[in-house]
């Protein structure tokens, strides 16, 4: 039987397999699967690995996640308070950086793999690797240097520093975040992750004007990635649109996969990429909570019609809110398997 890894390899090289790869970002749902609270679920890497493996098995999609929650990166940089909700992703409950002095004092761990906050993700990765390694791509979430400050000091303070603060302080912070990024991606690579979702909303022109994107985002992306390489890296800007920046990123960095925003026009994205990289069409999964089966199928069909011509296409989800009913997750995935079948397409 064909594996997710084989589907991905085929799609990346522009070849057909049975169907396009389907990446489904079920993260917090693992707690529901195991009948646990989110706090309990995320307290142990075995839980997260078990949740991931069970959900992949149950729904049949192609990827696994080693991500706990985005605030994990803040924990690695000194955050001691995460706020857990009953039905949504945990949040950073304490800013690591409250003033410019905190930026000077910010310590990037020498060895992330040895950091106490990385031990449970490591345990999770070891299990995923031993149970599904080589069969299903294991994803890790790594935040770009331009975006990480938003997690450490909040969006408002980061925008203030970026737009109106002292450039030397901004650059000290960005250099530390870039150093952290390199160490983090290396730690995930060493632990066996295959795909590195390089998250960078501040690397989009939805967040920054074109001029700042060119003057700041691109050079800092180069600093992040040049020393560690772009093998397995997927460019992702959160919900922000990628199409306006894809060409410039492709020309400056050898990133070989682009995870569009649901707000991006898939046909246009494919046209810009022009076969130079893999393109992920991403469903707007926020309304998935309320959509009917027919609405879901129509939307998936539309995405496939836009994305499948020319190959090098995968189907992806955005945040998959906790409240999406299981029947709607199934309806979306069944439609993706059906309309994403190369045989049906042909």
């Amino acid at each position, binding site marked *: 039987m064909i594996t997710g890894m084989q589907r991905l390899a085929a799609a990346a090289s522009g070849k057909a397999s049975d169907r396009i790869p389907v990446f489904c970002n079920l993260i917090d749902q693992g707690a529901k699967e195991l009948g646990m609270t989110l706090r309990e679920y995320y307290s142990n890497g075995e839980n997260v690995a078990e949740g991931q493996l069970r959900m992949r098995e149950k729904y049949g999609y192609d990827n696994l996640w080693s991500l706990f929650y985005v605030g994990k990166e803040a924990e690695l940089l000194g955050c001691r308070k995460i706020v857990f*909700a009953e039905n949504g992703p945990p949040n950073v409950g304490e800013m690591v950086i409250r003033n410019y002095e905190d930026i000077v004092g910010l310590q990037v761990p020498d060895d992330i793999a040895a950091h106490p906050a990385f031990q449970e993700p490591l345990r999770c990765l070891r299990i995923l690797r031993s149970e599904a390694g080589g069969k299903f791509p294991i994803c890790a979430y790594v935040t770009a240097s331009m975006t990480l400050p938003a997690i450490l000091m909040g969006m408002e303070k980061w925008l203030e520093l970026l737009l109106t603060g002292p450039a030397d302080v901004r650059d000290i912070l960005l250099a530390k975040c870039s150093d952290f990024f390199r160490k983090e991606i290396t730690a995930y690579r060493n632990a066996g992750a295959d795909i590195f979702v390089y998250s960078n909303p501040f690397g989009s022109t939805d967040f920054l004007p074109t001029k700042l994107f060119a003057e700041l985002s691109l050079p800092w992306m180069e600093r992040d990635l040049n020393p560690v390489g772009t093998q397995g890296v997927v460019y992702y800007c959160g919900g922000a649109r990628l199409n306006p920046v894809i060409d410039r990123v492709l020309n400056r960095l050898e990133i070989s996969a682009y995870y569009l925003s649901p707000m991006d026009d898939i046909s246009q994205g494919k046209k810009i990429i022009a076969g130079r990289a893999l393109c992920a069409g991403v469903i707007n999964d926020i309304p998935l909570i309320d959509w009917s089966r027919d609405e879901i199928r129509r939307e998936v069909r539309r995405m496939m019609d836009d994305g499948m011509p020319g190959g090098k296409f995968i189907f992806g989800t955005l945040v998959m809110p906790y409240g999406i009913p299981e029947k709607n997750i199934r309806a979306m995935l069944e439609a993706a398997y059906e309309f994403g079948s190369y045989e049906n397409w042909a």
Partner: protein
Amino acid sequence: MFAQVIKAYNEAIFDTDRERALKVIHDAVNKGVSPEAIVFKVVIPAIELMIKSISESFDASLAQHFLTSQVAADVVEEMIPQFKKSPEVVGRVVIGTSQGDFHGLGKRIVIGCLNALMINVTDLGLNVPPERFVDEAVAHDAQVIGISSMMVHTARGENGCLKVRRILKERGLEGKIKIIVGGAPYRYDGNLYRIVQADSWAEDGITAGKVIAGLIKEARK
């Protein structure tokens, strides 16, 4: 000369250059442009220009929204004490993020714009319980409650807008106080504001000022 002021200010704002925008304003004041003209003919039209550029999918990023609102609020705060006659307050708003939500950027952009539009705004901060939204709205004689949510579960949850609506209904305040919601989940689902029983929503912080001004009029009818 006045046209040059407007042009220079707008260019500085679009370049996210706060210092340059403030210099344009101060130079204009020094050359005799009245504080009233600065607010009503330069700063507020710049917000409207940003709204126009958003609706036309022009290159208007979050950073530009942020800077537009912050500079506008700063300039208006500086100019109002110099007005010949105190401007009339257009209306009153209380605003905060829904319970469980700690993302304050959108709220801050809205507050900056409301201040510039002469709308009196009370910032309730982050993680605001539904009862407090209503209590503060009553205490401040507000026509509008603004609820910002960055996450789906805080937008749709029982302790968000849905409960604010229930409390307004129970206290017979629905005719007097309108609810506006905003934040990422609403941008991805244009029908979500109806599901959470808000009166209206805004796609971004800049546009919210205009929508809120409309709601104030409606509440006062």
